[in-house]
């Protein structure tokens, strides 16, 4: 069964810490995405990547950066965590030619205190 795996299910970090959220997919997908989901706001796209070492800003990139050194791994980085970054973070991947078939991970619930 194809998978998108997010390294942590729950995470608690302190304000000002640098936080790394890791995502790995085993489907050889070119495209990878990071969303955050908050009550009443739906899913919002933070960053995405079409290929290794490529990245594009989504709708809400402020306060975040990403890294894609290998095709299967896409990392989201919170440079200096703040309480307003407390959220559910979801990673997804898709084939380059597929605009529709996203496979999502189970999510990382991050709490910044």
């Amino acid at each position, binding site marked *: 069964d194809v998978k*998108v795996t997010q390294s942590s299910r729950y995470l608690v970090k302190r304000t000002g810490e640098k936080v790394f959220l890791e995502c790995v997919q085993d489907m050889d997908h070119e*495209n990878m*995405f990071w*969303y955050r989901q908050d009550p*009443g*706001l*739906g*899913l*919002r*796209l933070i960053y*995405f990547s*079409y290929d290794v070492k490529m990245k594009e800003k*989504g*709708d809400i990139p402020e306060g975040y950066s990403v890294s894609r050194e290998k095709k299967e791994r896409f990392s989201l980085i919170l440079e200096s965590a703040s309480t307003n970054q407390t959220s*559910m973070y*979801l*990673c*997804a991947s*898709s084939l*380059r030619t597929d*605009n*529709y*078939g*996203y*496979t*999502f*991970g*189970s*999510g990382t*619930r991050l709490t910044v205190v």
Partner: protein
Amino acid sequence: LAKTTQPISMDSYEGQEVNITCSHNNIATNDYITWYQQFPSQGPRFIIQGYKTKVTNEVASLFIPADRKSSTLSLPRVSLSDTAVYYCLVPEGYSTLTFGKGTMLLVSP
């Protein structure tokens, strides 16, 4: 940019058919319509996609009228486990999907 509008919530009972309608007035000629399902504390899951008329799979049916300005997701004989949020999506730009707030479907006994 294509934008979708769907009801915020719907209620149903076990065994009933549920139809969730989504409007996408500005859909582009080449755009497909895609529906996802999300259970609490999980990532969204692809259910069905279509371009025109009717598409059916083991989970749902998707009805799209000729003008393609709306679509209806049909869930036959729902059960309690169909309680979830359902998202209607039309792609915006290359390889990105914008998820709105979706429709919260609550199925009761």
